[in-house]
């Protein structure tokens, strides 16, 4: 997933930045397939709370995950202004429900700082670093842990 460019170029990567509530997060653009407006999803019975349901993405059935819920943040009612970021994790394609996409930034690898010690275990499993840009703090998200599929089959 990491896209290491040659020595000749600067060691930077592109990230998609989005907002959940008041916090900003970003993910490696290489895993982003597309960005869609919100559509109502069909709920999946016996699914975890954070799985909102599935939607039709040009013929593929796409699970939609409420990212705020997954990260343990306060959730809001779904609104039509929300955005679904379609990402590829491993060989799955899923949609992440976020409030808005705010930016696409080119960030130097050196600018990525380790996650501060205040965070909880849960947060640490998702947030793998933070980036300071001007006065913003953007948390770098690792998608690998967003879908621990083994737990999805609820009892």
């Amino acid at each position: 997933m990491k896209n290491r460019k040659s020595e000749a170029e600067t060691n930077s990567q592109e990230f998609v930045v989005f907002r959940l509530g008041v916090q900003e997060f970003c993910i490696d653009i290489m895993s982003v397939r597309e960005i869609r407006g919100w559509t109502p999803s069909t709920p999946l019975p016996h699914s975890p709370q954070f799985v909102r349901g599935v939607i039709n993405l040009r013929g593929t059935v796409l699970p939609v995950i409420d990212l705020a819920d997954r990260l343990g943040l306060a959730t809001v009612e779904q609104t039509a202004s929300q955005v679904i970021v379609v990402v590829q994790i491993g060989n799955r394609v899923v949609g992440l429900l976020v409030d808005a996409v705010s930016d696409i930034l080119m960030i130097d690898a050196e600018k990525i700082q380790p996650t501060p010690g205040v965070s909880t275990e849960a947060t640490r499993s998702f947030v793998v670093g933070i980036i300071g840009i001007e006065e913003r703090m953007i948390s770098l998200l690792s998608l690998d842990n967003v879908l621990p599929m083994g737990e999805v089959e609820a009892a």
Partner: protein
Amino acid sequence: MDPMESIRQTFFLECEEQLTELEAGLLALEAGQAEPDTVNAVFRAVHSIKGGAGAFKLHNLVQFSHAFETVLDRVRCSRLQASPHVMKTMIRAADILSDLVAAARDQRELASGAWQGVEGELRSLCSDTEGPAPAAPTSGTGAAEEAFSFTPALIALDFPPPEPQPSCVTIKFKPADELYAKANEVVPIFRELARLGSVAAVCCPDAVPHLEDLNPLGAYLSWTIELKTSHGESAIREAFEFVEGDCLLEISCPAPDAGLGFDNASNELGAATSQPEEEAAKVVDFAPREIESTASATSALSAAQASASSSSGSGKAETGAGPGLNQSQPTIRVDFERVDRLINLVGELVINQAMLSQRIIEAGVGNSPSVAIGLDELEHLTREIQEGVMAIRAQPVRPLFQRMARIVREVADSTGKAVRLRTEGEATEIDKTVVERLADPLTHMIRNAIDHGVEAPEQRTSLGKPAEGQVRLTAGHKSGRVVIEVADDGAGIDRPRVKAIAIKKGLISVDAQLTDTEIDNLLFLPGFSTASTVSNISGRGVGMDVVKRSIQALGGRISIASQPGAGSTFTLSLPLTLAVLDGMVVAVSGQTFVIPLTAIIETVKPSPASVHPLGVGSRVIAVRESFLPIIDVGSELGIREPLTAAHTGVAILVETEGGAQNALLVDAIQDQRQVVIKSLEANYGQTPGVAAATILGDGRVALILDVDALVNRRRSESTSYEMPIAVGA
């Protein structure tokens, strides 16, 4: 992709086909049902594998296939009788060959113990008959030789010449008629010689007769060639390799001061120049550039051949290949990806067409006759395209059944039982993806049948059965589905024992009253495993419940019938394709779901009087003579609390595996239509009670219910084993 890699993949694909041919042919031979060419076909299959293996330097494979090929060669020349012992060895060899190919493909080594034994047996079959095989030495060096790469032709294979200076070699060369008849030409030979050194050649036309006696296809010219070369004689002979036997050839390497040779040449030179005939050749200094002039000299004589060869040079250069792989009919190879993409697109087309129809009707235009007819035709055409495309992926089950043949052999061997596999309906076609996913369940069922079902030979004879047990594997189409049966003529299900185990494992209550069929179906319950001594073969922690789930994941059903003492039969019913489903669209709590039509018996609008509570938390509905358990879909799926007034909904009566009937309670029925199945598992995973998803006409996703799962879930939640109770019993 690297071209060699692509060819390597082709090779292994081809090996699969050859191995299938091989096995089918050997079995036919063994059963005495072979055609005249079968032995040759079998030989060719092994020969082909050997050829490719050599090219890829797969030494073990080359060695083994060589030994196998030798035996087959003898059989096809009738030098070796195809006795039962020989056949058995060859069938084993085919299995080993298959293992070796798989190992080569996965780039691992096969334990030598696995195959060297059989190889030795193959060798011994050949040493009994007249003389040893031409290249079958005991240590396999013959085969290994073939695997060596050869050095380029032009490098002298001899030790380097003793003197640093080139020596003069005199070559006397007189082609016979046959040389030209085989389309050999002297020019290329001279060209090769020219590569070895400097050539001075004199043509002697002495033998050329008068024109009227001239045979245009006759060879009359001869040459004396002086070759100054540092290459040895073998390199020179190599230039003449193809024509030796069709010419007079004398190669003499005189002493280093080779004055003699040139004197001879000058004599002949004198003689030659005095010949006035147009065919008289000149002394030509054979630098390669001069080839054209010599060509004209020789072609003047062999006019018929020359015109043939020059016209061949201007022949059309088509680079297309003839029809590929015509084993039985012309076929073409297509990448799976392309077929999959096509199938997906067609699926989209079906959805789109449904959506369009719906929108048109909603827009109020649907009633106009021309529009209605148009929509109908569109639907009809779409369906036809869909069926046609699905058929592309349809494949006969034959290769799958053949794999089972091997499983039967292996399991029979390791359990010490005698078992024969009978197959029927091998030409039945199913979607390729289904065929692939059937392999594991079938393997497991066959293992079970032999391990647990078929009795040991002595026991069988004492029961009056033939010592050899039989496993029957059949496939056929029945009312739009594919039906596959796995039947054995063994002991059948030991019902008392099964019931006892189920009770012991807490799967049923001690005093449960079960019909025979219901007892048989206990095998499918999770957590059930008959083997208290888990046998090597079947007891790898995989129970019949896993088999059942695999079949269900394919959209199929499995049922079992058994007769004590006579045997058991498993029946699989599978959809023709994985991609479409006829379903009933229903509404539950504002959401839309699809119930597969194949599970539905009928629909009933319950009256308040027909619904009765039973025990705690359960309800049944009276339908004619029976009472069926009600399953409230909304509450089962966790969408809402159970409908208190059941009669406000609709009851859909369904039948599950084992014949049990239940009533699914939904809010309303919306429609009945064919839907395209979309996988949930690809991107998400398994959801209990949900088989898959589909996209409806309005573009939204609707879930397809897994009826069996819903019913089982409900059943396992209740404390007692519910079943239909006959009124008045």
